[in-house]
């Protein structure tokens, strides 16, 4: 290394020093430590003892672990695509010729900045089966169905029902798609008008235009929101912690990170929780790679795509 390079290196390292220190103390060190912990028995009060693969073996036989994984999968599989679909539809709608677009954009965006804890407290009351407005709105619908088919449907008990608690949390998540919608809307406005004009000349229907012009043109941003959405959904925690008292009714909303948190900070099974944390990490990495593989060829990057 020449003296000049050395000087450059020193200067560069000086500027990124905060990150380097933070990275070692809050990332690299803890990553190694939790990896080691995952092979130990550790209850915080006594020294960790080596347990080899016991934690992972126990996980495989832990019903709650599998339940939490299934619950999280349910939440992810429904909330992510549904959220993307709603965000995309709203963006398409707002992208049409219309009045007061900024006002409506604000209305759809606003829910996404409501603090999650405040939103959770609010939605508990909305989902209240006796006095909440959701069931007030659904009641006429059920009555109509009952009248037409002679059925006896009633609005669900939402958070009190093992069947409906998870769908309730999915519904709540859709309320917060405003950020995604803003992204889609910005992407839609960047699609060159000329492409639509050409499609018009070819006699394309609106649906064909969406399918063959809009979707390919905004595919990078769809992909980005898909990956971020999946990662976020797999880490769902706050809503369940607050709204369903740590996974109730029964264990129907016991999500992965909730169970991880309980193991770590309520049962003090730090080794076990660390093993869970690494399984989550592996899962997220695997899903991200999988999504890259599957969707890679559907993504269109303008200008060749070296991204």
């Amino acid at each position, binding site marked *: 290394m020449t003296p000049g390079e050395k000087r450059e290196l020193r200067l*560069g390292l000086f500027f990124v020093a905060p990150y380097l220190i933070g990275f070692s103390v809050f990332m690299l060190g803890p990553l190694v430590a939790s990896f080691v912990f995952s092979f130990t028995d550790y209850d915080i009060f006594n020294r960790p003892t080596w347990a080899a693969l016991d934690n992972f073996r126990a996980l495989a036989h832990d019903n709650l672990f599998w339940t939490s994984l299934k619950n999280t999968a349910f939440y992810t599989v429904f909330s992510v695509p549904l959220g993307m679909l709603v965000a995309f539809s709203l963006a398409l709608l707002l992208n049409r010729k219309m009045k007061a677009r900024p006002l409506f954009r604000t209305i759809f965006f606003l829910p996404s900045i409501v603090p999650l804890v*405040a939103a959770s407290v609010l939605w508990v009351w909305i989902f209240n089966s006796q006095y909440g407005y959701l069931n007030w709105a659904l009641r006429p619908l059920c009555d109509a169905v009952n009248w037409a088919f002679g059925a006896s449907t009633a609005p669900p008990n939402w958070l009190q029902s093992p069947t409906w608690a998870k769908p309730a949390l999915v519904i709540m998540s859709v309320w917060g798609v405003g950020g995604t919608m803003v992204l889609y809307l910005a992407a839609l406005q960047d699609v060159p008008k000329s492409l639509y004009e050409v499609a018009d000349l070819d006699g394309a229907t609106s649906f064909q235009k969406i399918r063959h012009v809009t979707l390919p043109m905004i595919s990078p941003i769809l992909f980005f929101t898909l990956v971020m959405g999946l990662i976020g959904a797999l880490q769902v925690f706050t809503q369940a912690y607050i709204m369903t008292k740590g996974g109730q009714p029964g264990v129907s909303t016991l999500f992965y990170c909730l169970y991880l948190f309980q193991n770590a900070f309520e049962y003090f099974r730090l080794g076990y929780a660390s093993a869970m944390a690494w399984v989550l990490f592996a899962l997220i990495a695997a899903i991200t790679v999988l999504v890259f593989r599957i969707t890679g060829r559907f993504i269109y990057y303008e200008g060749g795509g070296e991204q």
Partner: protein
Amino acid sequence: MKRDFVLTHLAVLALSAVFLFPFIWLLTSALKPNELLKQWPPIWVFSPTLEHIRELFAPASPFRFWQFLSNTLFVCAFTVTGNILASSMVAYGFARLRWPGRNLLFYTMLGTMMVPAQTMMIPVFLVFRRLGWIDSFLPLIVPPLFGNAFFIFMLRQFFLTVPRDLLDAARVDGHGEIAIWWRVVMPLSIPAIAVVGLFSFLGSWNDFINPLIYLLDETRYTLSLGLAMFQGQYEAQYGRLMAASALMTCPIVVLFFFTQRQFIEGIKMTGIKG
């Protein structure tokens, strides 16, 4: 065409009603007298009362709004300052300096953004416990002093757009890199800095899991932790709960109306260039 125009507006109006309804429910419930709260069907027109809000501000209220608010603002102030200073400094090092290993480190940083926080959570907790920082604000305000990968990435992208000639001119004038970062690049990047400040404020205001892990004594609760605990204790008191939720949400909504452009820009910046 005309028909399309009308249909679009009808659809948008209907959907915005759906999205607005939870807010209306929040406000009406916060202002509804207790005896009307549990009426079926819900009553939408009534003479509003401030009893729930007044109860929250009563001296013995378990939801100590002022205390929680000042705790939250204290944490936010440190987080915002730390994130802006540290992230911009690091971003400058990545964007405008050439040094061996820079790209390797930068891409490592991008890669680590995928690692879920839960994986580091336990050892980080143990470190703070060893330092005796449990039940203090330190675990919430110290980590941002080292920057945040997300903000560093965003600022780096922005710093790259500052014209090279400006920096070279400053170098010719004999300014050091610190001066260039602080006096040339920072003033030109106010829009991006504002976005970082805003998002970091929001993140800190909304953060729940860290206060939950690290704060034990009620006098140190932040608004989110305070509201969550309040909800646990007063499950059935919907009027008070809605009043408290509204109090926590209002500042954010007001902030949003003053910073709409930064919000939208920030979302685009973090999303599209990502």
